[in-house]
């Protein structure tokens, strides 16, 4: 199949950037989306042009590096799929495909389709971990965890931090990511001691990074390649309300 690509080209963070059109002939429907970009880049290199910069690593949908807005949808048209796992059979011969980077103030463009997602690291650094070293995995029966809690925590832990939720959100909010990183700990015994300081710290870091506010639209959960459910944000809200209404600094409160 022959495709027309319109790709965002931007030389560096300060460059203004623009959409540039490329023709890519003889694309196999069995190629992944990133392989198709590789083919384009090989040709650009042979022609002496600058190849298109894009993030990628594992190419099996678990690392969270790929970050392409394909035809206006985060990770492209297939639900529950990262861009690297998207195959060209999802497109038709003669299609024009627009490829843009994630758009958010907190995710500045580094080059072409590569954005800096350091803002997510800052949210994690604000409390998205258990402070005390917990050692190696304990005997599974020593701390009972209800199956429903374990399942819900695991659902949140599936977040790969790709940023599709931010890219898809009309408000540019990173609340689904923040909520996933909070609930994967708040539902488990190891996360309890720091549960309420964690939620305040991480929400503050989220707001400071320049993300927008959540208005419960649900575009994030629809775009999420890992299927993090929208009610995760409800768990965050409840913890946040409890944390802000609790008396701080009173032992036993």
């Amino acid at each position, binding site marked *: 199949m022959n495709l027309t690509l319109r790709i965002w080209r931007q030389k560096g963070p300060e460059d203004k950037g623009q959409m540039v059109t490329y023709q890519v002939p003889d694309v196999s429907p069995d190629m992944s989306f990133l392989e198709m970009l590789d083919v384009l880049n090989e040709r650009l290199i042979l022609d002496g042009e600058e190849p298109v910069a894009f993030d990628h690593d594992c190419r099996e949908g678990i690392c969270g590096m790929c970050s392409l807005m394909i035809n206006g949808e985060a990770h492209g048209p297939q639900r529950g799929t990262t861009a690297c796992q998207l195959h060209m059979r999802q497109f038709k011969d003669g299609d024009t495909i627009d490829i843009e980077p994630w*758009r*958010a103030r907190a995710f500045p463009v580094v080059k072409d389709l590569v954005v800096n997602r350091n803002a997510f690291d800052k949210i994690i650094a604000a409390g998205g971990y258990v402070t005390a070293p917990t050692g190696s995995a304990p005997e599974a029966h020593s701390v009972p965890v209800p199956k429903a809690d374990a399942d819900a925590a695991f659902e949140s832990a599936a977040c790969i931090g790709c940023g599709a939720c931010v890219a898809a959100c*009309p408000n*540019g909010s990173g609340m689904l990511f923040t909520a996933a990183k909070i609930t994967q700990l708040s539902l488990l015994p190891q996360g309890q001691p720091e549960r309420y300081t964690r939620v305040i710290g991480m929400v503050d870091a989220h707001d400071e990074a320049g993300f927008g506010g959540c208005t419960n*639209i649900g*575009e994030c959960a629809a*775009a999420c390649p890992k299927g993090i459910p929208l*009610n995760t944000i409800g768990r965050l809200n409840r913890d946040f*309300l409890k944390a802000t209404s609790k008396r701080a600094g009173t032992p036993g409160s």
Partner: protein
Amino acid sequence: MAVTGIILVLFLIAHMLGNLKIFTGEEAFNHYAHWLRDLGTPLLAPGWYLWLQRTVLMVAVLAHIGAATVLALRARAARPVAYAHRRKIHVNYAARTMRWGGVIILLFVIYHILDLTTGTLNPVGDSTRPHSNVVADFAPERWYVTLFYTLAVVTLGFHLRHGAFSAFRSLGQQTPKGERRARTAALVFAVVLTAGYLVVPFAVLTGLVA
């Protein structure tokens, strides 16, 4: 947003129930309207209760708009460069029209107060005869008033459909099962309120209330 929204929703419920009194006849409706002025007496002087309620509603409306403005400004700042190609995947008309819908509702509320509270824009405009005001307002030859009213109430319905669900979520609704319940409750509530408000002008239009 949630807390101020709940205050406004409580008023909307009371206001709708009051409106429906129009079906109990002119005398009962007028009596209800006069009772509102005397509500709270002898603890309060006549009319005080109404001003108390107006103050609370005004504060709630301003806080609601203030919070919405902060969210809208943050959203704009959070995405300085727009997408060249944007497709909405999760079709949620109610959620997408919250901001402009809110503006339409505000404009309607201003008109509605000038029409049926102060009587400035009402053909009768007599505060002692509210029933006559309503009947004159939605008379068939003033179809454009009914049209604007309908448009505003439907917009309000959409606003409530997302707003009510969003309030549950903001106040800590957290399970998938609860989410389905909250969405259903919000939808039913929005439909009931929309129908409850629309039935009055259409009853006047069709001559059921005269």
